């Protein structure tokens, strides 16, 4: 607790209003109701389509709803199947609820050739939400005994979304695949109007129209169902930063699933994490025994150690969560243990 107080105290001294919008880019509206998410009646506006990534990002058990708005007549450039480029004017929203109450809605807005990040904090009467300050809001609501959810700062938004050339992290080929993973932690069943690759192709909003994505829907290239789900989870939850093209590529650990490879290619996570040493050593182990993922040995696996941790110096992800994802921990532990069996 004293550590958190010290770190929070230090963070207070950070200058406010970090300039993370491109110069000249418009400011996001002050109210969520002004962002075109809703129509005049308060319902989701026509043209804003819901979607559910099959490997959703863990946010301490928040119930999430997501929508995307593509400008009329515009298409997503998927010429690089792993790096979708969205048309000017695209908006994505993600609503976070805890205990049945809406807490915040985040928005990504492509404008001026770049992305604008915004978080909106819901009013007590749940009628509208106000733009959060650039520094975020620490500990806005209690979500578990002694644990509180925080509205991210713009710097926090950028820390994840700018760590991938894609910027948009939950709307891509694997996440929207029609071949859904039944073991994906916290994966929700698709609703009739949820967008998937097939419905995007049917709506003719992908350019080029990659029909192969419907014929052979993307899936993690692992035969074992537990391995498939574990690597899919790591891709959805860790691959935003730990990928092969962003600033952290120099660490040599790529947990992001990609489609632009041979169908028989090994998953990057298997190549760069399994039985590979890393910079972080599991306490009590040296560089000879600590591994990112130690086959058959969860106790020597730094990745699992950091997934379990919710202490500032070791937890992964390093932000956006204060409660560990027990279901995912169990899944990844089973995967690691399974690799030790003949």
């Amino acid at each position, binding site marked *: 607790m004293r*550590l958190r107080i010290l770190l929070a105290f*230090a963070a207070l001294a950070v200058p406010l209003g970090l300039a993370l919008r491109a110069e000249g880019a418009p400011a996001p509206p002050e109210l969520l109701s002004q962002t075109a998410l809703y129509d005049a009646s308060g319902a989701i506006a026509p043209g804003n389509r819901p979607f559910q990534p099959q490997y959703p990002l863990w946010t301490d058990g928040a119930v999430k709803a997501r929508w995307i708005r593509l400008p009329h007549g515009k298409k997503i450039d998927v010429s690089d199947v792993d790096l979708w480029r969205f048309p000017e004017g695209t908006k994505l929203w993600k609503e976070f609820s805890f205990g049945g109450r809406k807490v915040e809605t985040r928005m990504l807005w492509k404008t001026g050739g770049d992305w604008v990040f915004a978080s909106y904090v819901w009013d007590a009467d749940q009628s509208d939400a106000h733009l959060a300050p650039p520094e975020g809001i620490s500990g806005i609501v209690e979500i578990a005994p002694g644990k509180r959810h925080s509205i991210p700062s713009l710097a926090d938004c950028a820390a994840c979304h700018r760590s991938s050339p894609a910027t948009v992290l939950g709307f891509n080929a694997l996440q929207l695949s029609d071949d859904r993973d039944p073991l994906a932690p916290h994966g929700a069943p698709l609703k009739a109007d949820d967008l998937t690759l097939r419905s995007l192709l049917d709506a003719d909003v992908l350019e080029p129209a990659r029909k192969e994505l419907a014929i052979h829907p993307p899936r993690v290239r692992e035969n074992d169902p537990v391995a498939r789900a574990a690597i899919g989870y790591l891709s959805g939850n860790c691959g935003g930063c730990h990928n092969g093209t962003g600033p952290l590529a120099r660490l040599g650990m790529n947990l992001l699933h990609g489609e632009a490879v041979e169908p028989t290619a090994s998953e990057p996570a298997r190549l760069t994490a399994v039985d590979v040493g890393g910079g972080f050593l599991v306490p009590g182990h040296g560089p000879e025994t600590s591994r990112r993922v130690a086959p058959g040995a969860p106790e020597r696996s730094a990745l699992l150690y950091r997934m379990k941790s919710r202490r500032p*110096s070791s937890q992964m992800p390093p932000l956006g969560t204060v409660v560990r994802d027990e279901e995912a921990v169990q899944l990844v532990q089973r995967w690691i243990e399974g690799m030790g069996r003949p």
Partner: protein
Amino acid sequence: MRSRQILTLTTAVAALAALALAPAAKGEATKPDPRKAQIARGAYLVKIMVCNDCHTPFKMGPKGPEPDMSRMLSGHPQDLVMPPPPKLGNGPWIASFAATNTAWAGPWGVSYTANLTPDPETGLGKWTADTFMQALRTGKHEGVGRPILPPMPYPWFAQATDEDLRAIFAYLQSIPPVKNKVPQPIEPPESE
């Protein structure tokens, strides 16, 4: 006669060329090199922002502790394995530090100062200026990871201009690389 004319012509051309080049050469000699100027600015900033106080290990000299400049800015020495830190109780003393001034213990656990030299494996050799700036602006390791721990006064450094932060990085990339793998921080006991 013809050879004399050629000689005269050649001499004239050479003289003209010399005249043409002379001002340029003089100009180049006095024109400041922006890269050198940036590195010099970075060196100055690193000096007055006392980076060496923590990132260069101290050794005992004839007049007492002094920075060991043979290990300039290379962080906590990998061969100096620290014993467990002393227990300070709940009193107003909350932190202790090693004689090298490169290891610190407090409520945050034990932190070690980083290797800022351009060694590619153990220092900042693979970093970019953008990553360096993001780390100091956000107080996050690598710009996106765990919090940078006390006593690093990043909130103050975060207020430097982009130009100054880039100058500091340029200087740090220009100094001799030192291969020195600094240990990772140690977390405090769970009860704290």
